[in-house]
C-alpha cells in the first residue's frame, strides 16, 4: 500500500459561476495585499526564512495548521472516505494527539536552539545536535527530494482548481497558480508565508465548518446518514471501513508518528517570538486542525448516504465528492468559499515547502560542503523561483511523474527525520553514526520500496504501508547503530546539551 491514493491528479468538475469566480478573485486580492505588506518588511535572510522570529502563538498555530493540511483535505480526502469508509479517517484521526506530542517532543527544543544558536532550518538542528555537516547535508538532500515531489503534486492540484473555477485549461492553470505563489513567496518569504497562512487557515476552517453543517443537514443528521449507509453498505461504517484493520492502523502509525517530522510545520517553531507562549500552542493548533478536518469526514459520509438513498447519482470518480456535493447541496456562496479554501490549503502548504526548500539549497547544502552563501536573502528568492519553476514544469510535463514523485513526500520526511530529530534532540545516547545511518536508511528504503510498488516490481502485502515500513526500518537502524557506536554519544556541544536538558 502506497500513499498514491492521497494524490489529486484528475480534472475537477467545472464550477465557473459568478459567485465562485468572485470569491476566488477576492481571495487572491487579500493574498496579494498581505504579500505586498510583507515584502516591504523583508530585509534580511532571517526575515525571509524564519519571519524574523517574531510571530505570536495564534499566528504560529493557525499558520502551522494551514501548512499541515493540503488540498487533499478538501478534495481527495472526502473522496477517499466515500470510497473506503471509516478506514480513510485513520489518516486524520491522529490529529487529536499529534500536536501535543510534537510540542512536547520538539517545539521547546527547536525554539531554544534558535535562541542559543540562531538556527533557521531543520537540518541546521540536526547539524548542531550531532556536530555533523554530513548529517545536515544528508537531511537536506532527503528533504529536497520530498519537497520537489510535494510541490509538483500541489502545483498540479492548484492548476486543476484554477481550471475548474476560471476555465483556463490545465497548463495555464498550473503556471498561473505557480506564478501567484512565487510572487508572494519570493517577495515576502516566510513573513508573507505565515500571514497569508493565517488568512488561508481561517478561510479553510470557516469553509470546513460550514460545509460540515450542510453535510449533516443533507442527510438528516449523523444518525440519518448512518441509517442510510447501514441499510446498503454496513462495512462502510465498521471501524476499519473497507480497509483491513492492519491497513487502517498503519495509516494511524504513519500519519501519527510521521507528524513529528514534517519540516514545513516544525520549522515554524523557530519563528515564535516568546518561547513561554508555547503553553497554549497545542490547544489552539488542535482545535484549528480538528475543525478543518470536519469537511474531510462530513462530505465523505454525506455523499455516501445521498448516493445510498438515490438522492445523488453514484460518482464517476471519488474525487468528485466535494464538488458534486457543493454544487447540489450547499449555497453557491459556500462553494465559492470552499474553492478559495482548497486554493488556500494548497498555496499555504506549497509556500512553506518553497521556503524550506530554498533554505536547503542556499543554506544547508552549502554548510554541508563547508561553504557559506553570501547574500542568502537574494539567493533564497532566486531559489524559490527556480524550485517553483521546476515543480510547475514537472507537473505540466508528466502526470505519471507527478504521481510517482508525490507519493514520497510525507513518508520520506517521516522515515528520514523522526529518529535523528525527534529522538535525537531528546536522547543523549543518540550518535552521529546512528543519525546518518537512519537518514540514509529512510531515504533509500522509501525510494526503493515506493519505486518497486509503483512500477509493480513487487506487491507488498495488504496492510503494509511502505512509508510505515521505511519508518520502522530507520528507527531500528537508529537504535542499533547508536548502541553500536555509543562511545560517540558524549560528543555534544555544551550549549546544545543545555537545550536538551531543559
Amino acid at each position, binding site marked *: 500500500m502506497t500513499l498514491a491514493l492521497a494524490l489529486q491528479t484528475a480534472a475537477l468538475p467545472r464550477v465557473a459561476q459568478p459567485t465562485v469566480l468572485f470569491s476566488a478573485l477576492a481571495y487572491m486580492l487579500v493574498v496579494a495585499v498581505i504579500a505586498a505588506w510583507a515584502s516591504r518588511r523583508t530585509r534580511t535572510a532571517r526575515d525571509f526564512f524564519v519571519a524574523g522570529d517574531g510571530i505570536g502563538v495564534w499566528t504560529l498555530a493557525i499558520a502551522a495548521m494551514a501548512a499541515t493540511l493540503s488540498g487533499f483535505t478538501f478534495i481527495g480526502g472526502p473522496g477517499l472516505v466515500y470510497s473506503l469508509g*471509516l478506514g480513510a*479517517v485513520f489518516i486524520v*484521526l491522529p*490529529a*487529536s*494527539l499529534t500536536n*501535543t*506530542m510534537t*510540542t*512536547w*517532543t*520538539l517545539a*521547546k*527544543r527547536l525554539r*531554544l536552539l534558535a*535562541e*542559543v*544558536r540562531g538556527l533557521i532550518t531543520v537540518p541546521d538542528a540536526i547539524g548542531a545536535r550531532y556536530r555533523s555537516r554530513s548529517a545536515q547535508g544528508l537531511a537536506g538532500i532527503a528533504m529536497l527530494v520530498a519537497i520537489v515531489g510535494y510541490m509538483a503534486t500541489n502545483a498540479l492540484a492548484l492548476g486543476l482548481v484554477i481550471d475548474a473555477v476560471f476555465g483556463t485549461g490545465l497548463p495555464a492553470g498550473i503556471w498561473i497558480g505557480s506564478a501567484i505563489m512565487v510572487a508572494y513567496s519570493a517577495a515576502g518569504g516566510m513573513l508573507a508565508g505565515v500571514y497569508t497562512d493565517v488568512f488561508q487557515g481561517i478561510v479553510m476552517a470557516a469553509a470546513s465548518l460550514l460545509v460540515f453543517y450542510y453535510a449533516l443537514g443533507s442527510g438528516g443528521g449523523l*444518525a440519518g446518514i*448512518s*441509517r442510510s449507509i*447501514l441499510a446498503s453498505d*454496513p462495512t462502510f*461504517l*465498521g*471501524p*476499519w471501513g473497507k480497509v*483491513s*484493520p*492492519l491497513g487502517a*492502523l498503519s495509516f*494511524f502509525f504513519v500519519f*501519527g*508518528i510521521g507528524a*513529528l517530522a514534517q519540516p514545513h510545520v516544525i520549522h515554524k517553531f523557530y519563528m515564535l517570538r516568546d*518561547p513561554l507562549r508555547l*503553553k*497554549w500552542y*497545542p*490547544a489552539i493548533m*488542535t*482545535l484549528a486542525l*480538528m475543525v478543518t478536518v470536519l469537511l474531510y469526514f462530513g462530505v465523505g459520509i454525506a455523499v455516501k448516504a445521498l448516493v445510498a438513498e438515490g438522492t445523488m447519482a453514484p460518482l464517476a470518480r471519488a474525487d468528485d465528492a466535494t464538488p458534486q456535493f457543493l454544487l447540489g447541496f450547499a449555497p453557491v456562496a459556500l462553494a465559492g468559499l470552499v474553492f478559495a479554501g482548497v486554493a488556500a490549503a494548497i498555496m499555504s502548504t506549497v509556500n512553506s515547502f518553497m521556503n524550506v526548500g530554498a533554505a536547503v539549497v542556499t543554506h544547508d547544502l552549502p554548510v554541508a560542503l563547508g561553504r557559506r552563501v553570501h547574500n542568502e536573502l537574494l539567493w533564497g528568492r532566486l531559489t524559490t523561483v527556480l524550485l517553483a519553476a521546476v515543480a510547475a514544469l514537472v507537473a505540466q510535463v508528466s502526470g505519471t511523474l507527478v504521481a510517482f514523485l508525490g507519493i514520497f513526500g510525507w513518508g520520506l520526511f517521516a522515515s528520514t527525520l523522526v529518529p535523528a530529530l*525527534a*529522538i535525537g534532540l*531528546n*536522547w543523549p545516547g543518540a550518535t552521529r553514526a546512528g543519525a546518518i545511518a537512519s537518514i540514509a536508511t529512510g531515504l533509500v528504503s522509501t525510494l526503493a520500496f515506493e519505486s518497486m510498488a509503483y512500477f509493480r516490481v513487487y506487491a507488498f*502485502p*495488504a*496492510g*503494509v504501508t511502505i512509508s510505515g*515500513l521505511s519508518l*520502522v526500518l530507520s*528507527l*531500528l537502524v537508529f*537504535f542499533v547503530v547508536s548502541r553500536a557506536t555509543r562511545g560517540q554519544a558524549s560528543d555534544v556541544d*555544551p*550549549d546544545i546539551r*543545555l537545550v536538551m536538558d*531543559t
Partner: protein
Amino acid sequence: MAARRGLTLIIAGTAAVALAYAAAFFPAAALRWAPWAMTVGIGFLCAGFMVLGAARPGRSLGPIWIPVAFTFVVLVVGLGLALALPGTEGPTTRLLAGLPPRAALVLYGVGLLPALVLPLGYALTFKRFTLDAADIERIRSAREQRDGSLP
C-alpha cells in the same frame, strides 16, 4: 529516569510495529494478531514520544504522566475494543451519538478524547514542568558565553 522510560516505550513500540509488519508477510494466521501488535505499538510509541519529550534530567514527570497514561489507555483500549468486538453493523444496529458503537469508539474515543485532555494537560503543567523564565535566562547566558568565546 523518565527519559529512559520514554525511550524504552519507543523501542518497545518500534519492535511491536516491526512485528506487525513482519507478520503481514506470513500466512493469514499471523494477520490475526498483527493488528494487535500494531495497536500496542502505536500506544507505546505515542506515550513514549510524549514522555521522552517531557522528561528533564533530575526531575520527575509530575502530573504529566496523567494525560500521557490517559492517552495510552484510550488508544490501546479504543483500538483494541474495535478489534475485539464482533462486527454487528447493520440496518438495525443501535447507534451511539449517531454512529454504530465500534465506529463511535474509534471516532469519539481515539479521535476526540485525547484532543480534550492532552492540550489541557500540556498547558496546566507548562510553567512548572516544561519551561519557565529562569530556563530561558540560562539559555541566553549560554548564548552570551558562546558568543564571547567565539573568535
